[in-house]
């Protein structure tokens, strides 16, 4: 009976509504070309080592019909690799992210946390807007646009969700869903370090980075530092929202990996359907 709990876990380690940013240009600071080359080589060697260290990346395809049906339903051919990533992520979560998130909840009162959460949501609004446009949903795009304009001005940089009070509640969108709306299927399931994903949603994650204006901030004026702080804070805040859910999942699920996989796949499917079936008119009801 964990569906209700696990719904939250799908965004668990990723902050800012499922997207975590890595500011561009950061590597440029203070790193010479040769240094980068050395680091690149070391990184490549590390990847090879870890790949070699994995006993298997792909799970063998079962032969008996029942197991085969289950294998197909799970849509997870890279399960051995995914499970390794999952275990590593959970270890990191246990020893680093969860304690930090707990400390954050303990020190920062809820109203302040709510405001900061509003800010994170508002700052992601441009990415939601571009995706709404890409998905061909003008009403949603309009909502996102109004939310951005209202919250960034009257809402003091997003700290107060004025738009919600004005009748424009937040809705989520990301490039994975936009691609889904274009009829692209999810592809195999993937567990990435930032949380559950799939081939399509992983690519979507990359597109979202490109769509977010915060990744284009120029160097100087402390903007890059602000961006890093904002991103890391987004991750901690995102995790703090799901402390109880994930604790319950770890306690109750016999196989947390499979539980998260199932909940994530169902949730993405439902989100894609909801986006597809949103045919609301762009004009307000009183105008029609």
């Amino acid at each position, binding site marked *: *009976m964990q569906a209700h709990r696990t719904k939250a876990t799908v965004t668990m380690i990723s902050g800012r509504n499922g997207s975590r940013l890595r500011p561009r240009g950061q590597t440029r600071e203070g790193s010479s070309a040769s240094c980068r080359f050395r680091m690149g080589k070391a990184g490549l060697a590390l990847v090879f080592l870890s790949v070699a260290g994995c006993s298997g990346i792909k799970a063998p395809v079962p032969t008996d019909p029942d197991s085969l049906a*289950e294998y197909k339903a799970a849509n997870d051919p890279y399960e051995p690799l995914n499970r390794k990533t999952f275990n590593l992520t959970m270890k990191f979560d246990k020893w680093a992210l969860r304690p930090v998130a707990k400390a954050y909840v303990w020190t920062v009162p*809820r109203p302040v946390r709510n405001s900061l959460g509003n800010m994170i949501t508002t700052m992601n609004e441009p990415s939601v807007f571009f995706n709404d446009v890409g998905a061909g949903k003008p009403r949603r795009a309009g909502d996102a646009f109004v939310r951005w304009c209202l919250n960034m001005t009257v809402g003091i940089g997003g700290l107060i969700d004025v738009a919600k009070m004005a009748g424009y509640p937040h809705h989520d969108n990301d490039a994975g869903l936009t691609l889904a709306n274009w009829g692209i299927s999810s592809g195999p399931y993937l567990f990435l370090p930032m949380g559950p994903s799939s081939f399509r949603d992983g690519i979507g994650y990359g597109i979202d980075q490109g769509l977010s204006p915060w990744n284009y901030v120029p160097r100087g004026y402390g903007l890059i530092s602000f961006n890093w702080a904002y991103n890391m804070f987004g991750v901690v805040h995102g995790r703090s929202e799901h402390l109880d859910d994930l604790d*319950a999942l770890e306690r*109750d699920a016999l196989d947390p990996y499979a*539980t998260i996989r199932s909940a994530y796949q*169902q*949730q993405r499917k439902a989100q894609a359907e909801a986006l597809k079936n949103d045919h609301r008119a762009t004009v307000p009801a009183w105008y029609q």
Partner: protein
Amino acid sequence: MIFQAGRRIVLGSLALACAGLLVSMPARAAQDPRTFIQTFGNTLVSIVNSPIPLGEKKVKILPLVQQNVDIDAIGRFCMGRYWKLATPEQRQTYLSLFHDVLVNTIIDKLGAYRGVTFTIGDVSKSGDLDAVQTTLVLPQQPPADVKWIVSYESGAPKVVDMVGEGASLRMTQRGDYEAYVGRNGGDVASLIKALKKQVAAHTAAATSTD
């Protein structure tokens, strides 16, 4: 003592009266899933909101859930393809454990709260099942949209699933159980053992905090 016994009798007779009411009106309720969920939800929420210890809440919630939720059907569904491989004894043990697991989950989720409210939204139909949309509000938490799936297969309306943010509870649970049994060599006994351990751990945690 006398007060306690008196209260128990009063509450017991109240519960009986409620149960009697529910039994006497399945035909009416069968036509209206909204009324069914409203009645079930109100009773559940009134127990959750009452100022009694968790242990007592559980004692009261168990019969209510057994009355209104088709726990056996959900249990069968959750075991997935291993249901037909299980022996009759295994099935029975599993189902009785599953009753505990399900009620424990409800208690864990709602038990500690006071001031839980819920509102009923749209009712839609999908095949033989009715889906009743509700919004559950827990104190200090954002409101949660939960869809209750009601089936009439057993003659009376019974809840067979809950859908929260697109994820079906029984589907997710089936994913969990099937994967667990699959990774333990397809042995149903491993699932029963794990559930026993889980129920025991829950009881131990509950008694230590009481």
